[in-house]
């Protein structure tokens, strides 16, 4: 005995619609992963270890991989300490003038067009130095990285229950020690998460490197004041070339970038319950 019920019908329609939209949203992401794997894997299989170690003439992307690691390392050295301190400051003094300004500034920087960062760094570093360099690229990446780290640090600290704040100050150790020796270690996991996410993010950035890093794909980087390559920058360059070989190499490089990105991201996301941005 089936009786038509408007309420039930609405419910069905709603569920179907929501499921359809969900699939539509997730589909492009899955398709990207699928097509990168399908096109990239054969290239890597065919060329073997040389793909990871060789220079451009050997059809390898070794220098680009090294360049990405160098850029991430340098930008972390420049950006992490400052951003971490800014985050802690914003947590400790949220109502101060500097605290509130920082907060607003961080929000803007999170949404800032990254290509403009590249233009800015070109103006202040590349032009005076007269050359593209790893240093300039790293500086641009550091600017992009800092707001993420600062916001994550602040949020991770804010998650600490007030009672631990009372307990640490209650030991009579003073503000600096209470914060840096007890509360920061307590929020270590959330802060580390923010750092790793920001590193994964800048490893995949292209735009800020366009006018700063220059590119170096035949030999490995030897100096921070000379041009350097990066995987996303290489992909961008290769895709612009008409050659079919260049395109398949770009697919291979994309897969390397994807693996690096997911390798950092998936473990983080799985353990990520403490921090929300």
């Amino acid at each position, binding site marked *: 005995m089936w009786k038509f019920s408007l309420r039930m019908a609405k419910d069905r329609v709603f569920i179907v619609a929501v499921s359809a939209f969900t699939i539509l949203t997730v589909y492009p992401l899955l398709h990207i992963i699928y097509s990168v794997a399908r096109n990239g894997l054969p290239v890597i299989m065919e060329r073997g270890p040389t793909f990871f170690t060789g220079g451009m003439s050997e059809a390898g992307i070794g220098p680009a991989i090294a360049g990405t690691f160098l850029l991430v390392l340098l930008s972390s050295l420049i950006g992490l300490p400052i951003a971490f301190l800014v985050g802690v400051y914003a947590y400790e003094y949220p109502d101060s003038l500097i605290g509130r300004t920082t907060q607003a500034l961080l929000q803007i920087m999170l949404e800032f067009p990254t290509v403009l960062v590249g233009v800015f760094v070109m103006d202040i570093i590349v032009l005076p130095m007269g050359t593209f360099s790893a240093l300039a690229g790293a500086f641009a990446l550091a600017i992009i990285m800092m707001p993420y780290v600062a916001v994550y640090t602040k949020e991770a600290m804010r998650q600490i229950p007030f009672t631990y704040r009372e307990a640490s100050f*209650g030991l*009579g150790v003073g503000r600096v020690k209470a914060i840096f020796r007890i509360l920061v270690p307590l929020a270590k996991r959330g802060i580390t998460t923010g750092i790793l996410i920001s590193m994964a993010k800048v490893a995949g950035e292209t735009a800020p490197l366009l006018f700063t890093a220059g590119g170096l794909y035949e030999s490995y980087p030897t100096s921070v004041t000379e041009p350097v390559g990066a995987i996303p920058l290489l992909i961008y360059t290769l895709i612009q070339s008409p050659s079919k070989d260049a395109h398949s190499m770009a697919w291979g490089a994309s897969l390397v970038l994807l693996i690096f990105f997911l390798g950092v991201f998936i473990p983080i996301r799985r353990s990520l319950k403490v921090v929300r941005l």
Partner: protein
Amino acid sequence: MNNYAIETRKLTIFYGENRVINRVSLKIPKNVVFALMGPSGCGKSTMLRAFNRILELNKDAKIMGKVFLMGQNIYAPNIDPSDIRRKVGMVFQYPNPFPHLTIYENVAMGIKLNGLLKSKEEVERRVKWALKRAWLWDEVKDRLQDYPSNLSGGQNQRLIIARALALKPKVLLMDEPTANIDPVGTRKIEDLIYSLKEEYTVVIVTHSPTQAARVSDCVGFLYLGKLVESGRTKEIFERPQHELTEKFVTGELV
């Protein structure tokens, strides 16, 4: 000469516009267990936090009047709140050992960060002493490198007491220390509190008149931010001067 561990004069505390404590003048003698009792929300915990200046962590709180610790005005401008917090240890309503530190580190942290003791052996000796004094040593001596999450609520609370004692304070503040502890653990902590008064002055906040009667020598009854009366526990419970006090100690006022 001053015989009081803590003395307040017209202590008034605001949270924003709200007056939580209203002109309380209270004297707490040395080497006693003093119970600050009253129904929930009467301002006991707030007042307790004024005794070691931990209340200042709350940005909305405004403190007026005077608080003396062993005769010294702790709100005088030249006083470093950290010094006061070292002299006045604190135990909280919910046992809050630092979850990322081992049992040993929880007790040692205050000593290390304050640079109270130089050598590692001295620190070890002090940690052992504090854990023994808090009646916890026998239960944890084989697992000092364990994390406090493996301890029971009562053990955790005694760990907090050890953490406070390790700094050799003069006064111990306890904010409803047994509110989240099972009856057996509660019994042990109450016995411990009673034993501590030989060396320390203990101020315990409780909403339970029976607990106040069990552990304290002196008592103050706080109602809606005002001190109704205070004195020897025996006298207050046997001959309350105020009708409200009588209602509270007989359990009519909750």
